């Protein structure tokens, strides 16, 4: 496919900083202790099944999904549970975590550890869903929505398009990029598995044009799989946003307040699709993921395969430690990620990157007066007026905020990135959304 697609409204072009795109994924190894949070997804925390002193293996179920919108949590190491209590997380808040002291590296016997690629999908729809559910797979692109819920389509909705999100538009991050290069075939088989759940025959792998190796690899492999195609997209932030990607690939617009399945689309991050492949074909629970450790202050940036629960600080040490000029450490990407309060916080199913940023790069200037340049309006991929949202939020004008669709904000941060007056527009948007939601109840 030669025509490159993109979404129509707004968008920005931040510097890419994809310094690790040529670094192969290496195994991070085993830390001494892992801290596994029982809530690594949207929904209710999982119910803890283990207690202090229990011996666990890699893949042992630690906590059981509590309700439909929840997810199982498994052990990522073998060893002894030393603590089941609240530990400080990445935001500095106490989170319920299971602490395991690592002893050896023994897997649950049901897990297929071989490197063989399994291509035949002998399972029924219900079996596949059950395997994904019991492997604790959640949306790994960042939202953490439990995958079984996302792929369960109500009878009155008809899905005709599966999109694999290989955009990874955040600067620095290359975890999905490397996964597409190194696990291309598994991802394509994962797409066929989801096809089987949805009862459709086609899938589109959307990749933006700054990942030539991933495009080439997947284009070669998809030739052997009928119905799976690569769609090259123009590089633009936030193309990885679900609604923006659907618009780019299919031209369809998800109506305000509705879900992608309302326009017949399901979007899955390529990392999630790989996890689905491993869950279904290899009986492997989601206990590890790819993490990019990078940043302009990172001495030795790399892509790692990391066991869930590994402390971020342990990964940073493997990359040369925290330099003197490091001003901020970010969990996730620099546009939407959070700056870490506690660098000992663990990697979760949703941590796509750990970034060490200098003050030069992440410095925030004090807020100045709006000069009405309109750059935020041009940048907003939703067509909102961030300057107006900021003004209404400051004045606490709730009804007006709702009228200008503040709830449609996807919190991509394009407005705050572009604002020459350095107004923290995203903060005002988030605050405005919170206020509007409060009055709704």
């Amino acid at each position: 496919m030669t025509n490159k697609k993109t979404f129509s409204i707004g968008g920005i072009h931040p510097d890419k900083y994809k310094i690790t795109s040529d670094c192969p994924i290496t195994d991070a190894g085993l830390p001494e202790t892992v801290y596994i949070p029982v809530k690594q997804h949207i929904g209710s925390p999982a119910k803890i099944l283990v207690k202090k002193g229990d011996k666990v293996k890699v893949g042992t179920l630690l906590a059981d999904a509590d309700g439909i919108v929840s997810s199982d949590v498994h052990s990522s190491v073998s060893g002894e549970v030393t603590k089941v209590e609240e530990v400080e997380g990445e935001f500095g808040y106490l989170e319920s975590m299971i602490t395991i002291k690592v002893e050896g590296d023994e897997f649950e016997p049901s897990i297929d550890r071989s490197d063989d690629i399994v291509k035949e999908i002998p399972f029924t729809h219900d079996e596949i869903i059950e395997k994904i559910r019991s492997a604790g797979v959640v949306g790994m692109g960042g939202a953490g929505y439990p995958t079984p819920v996302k792929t369960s389509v109500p009878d009155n909705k008809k899905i005709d398009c599966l999109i694999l999100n290989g955009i990874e538009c955040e600067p620095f991050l290359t975890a999905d990029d490397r996964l597409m290069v190194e696990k291309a075939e598994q991802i394509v088989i994962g797409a066929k598995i989801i096809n089987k759940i949805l009862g459709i025959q086609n899938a589109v792998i959307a990749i933006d044009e700054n990942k030539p190796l991933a495009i080439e690899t997947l284009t070669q492999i998809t030739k052997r799989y009928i119905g799976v195609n690569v769609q090259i997209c123009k590089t633009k932030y936030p193309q990885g946003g679900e609604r923006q990607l659907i618009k780019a690939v299919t031209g369809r617009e998800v109506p305000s307040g509705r879900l992608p399945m309302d326009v017949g689309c399901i979007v899955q991050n390529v990392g999630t699709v790989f996890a689905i492949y491993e869950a279904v074909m290899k009986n492997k629970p989601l206990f590890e993921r790819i993490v990019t450790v990078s940043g302009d202050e990172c001495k030795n940036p790399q892509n790692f395969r990391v066991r869930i629960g590994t402390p971020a600080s342990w990964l940073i040490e493997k990359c040369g430690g925290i330099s003197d000029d490091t001003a901020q450490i970010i969990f996730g990407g620099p546009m939407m990620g959070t700056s870490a309060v506690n660098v000992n916080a663990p990697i979760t199913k949703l941590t796509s990157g750990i970034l060490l940023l200098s003050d030069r790069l992440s410095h925030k200037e004090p807020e100045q007066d709006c000069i009405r340049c309109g750059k935020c309006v041009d940048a907003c991929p939703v067509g909102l007026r961030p300057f107006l949202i900021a003004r209404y939020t400051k004045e606490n004008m709730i009804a007006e905020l709702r009228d200008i669709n503040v709830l449609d904000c996807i919190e991509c941060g394009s407005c705050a990135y572009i604002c020459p007056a350095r107004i923290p527009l995203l903060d005002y948007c988030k605050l405005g959304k919170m206020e509007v939601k409060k009055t709704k109840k």
Partner: protein
Amino acid sequence: MLKISTAPHLHSSADTDTLMRGVIIAMLPAALVAVLFFGIGALKVILTSVAACVLWEYLIVRYLLRQPSTVHNGSAVITGMLLAFNLPPTIPAWMILIGAFMAIGVAKMAFGGLGKNLFNPALVGRVFLFISFPVQMTTWMKPSIRDFLNTDVQSGATTLGILKHIDASSSATSLTGGAESLPDYGQMFVGYTGGSLGEVSALALLLGLAYMLYKKIITWHIPFYYIGTVFLMTGIMWLITGDIRYEPLTHLLSGGLMLGAIFMATDYVTSPMSVNGKIVFAVGCGILTFVIRLYSAYPEGVSFAILIMNAFVPLIDKFYYPRVFGTGRK
């Protein structure tokens, strides 16, 4: 010590100061042409105007509002340069001081400072001077490269001034009206004609436009639709009537059209924020410029056209904004 802050953690390198500096750089070619053609007097006007605007802003912010100085952002320098661009090279310094006060003190600071003013400050200053001192404000100078340091005023007329006095009945074939003849297109393009300091050279102004577009300081919409509207309307009338006074290229290259469309109608603060709003605003400026130039007592229409459209900006912003993703609403 690590910092904690909210997302996004990266920011575009263009902040307010950078954008303002970009606009100043974009105005330099026009300033250079002014000094080249009108001599040392033009330089004096520019420097006086910039100094006066910066001084007024500093005095008002520091001693009236008692706030930290805001002159570093460069917006007062831009106002000063734009005001100078709108003045004849022979204007006395005390008048510039008054114009600068009207621009900064009344049009900008009285409305709350940068970002809050309704009308373009430089244009308010210019129009105030134009109405108060019509003689001094319309004493034009003949351009000359050789007499750089010669301050003797050899008065000349502006292209539009000549056009205005052409007798409608005799104009169809003749290019001469009264005592002076119209400059040719080449002279108008490089700016070898009488007029306000910064408006004469279309070439220099277009260079500035190219720079601002390249640096993504402004979008192309306002200059394109403004100039396009004037060109289209005069062109249609010219084709219908054959009257030399409608000749579209002359209108394009003369008067304050290029200066207004490139540097003043595009002022962030006093123009609409959305693309559609910008187009409505620019077309409105174009229509008003056409009407004032051709059917009013004034030969020049750009200043009034932009100021009138400035007043409509809040209304335009209310009606024209982007469609929200996933809604049918306009």
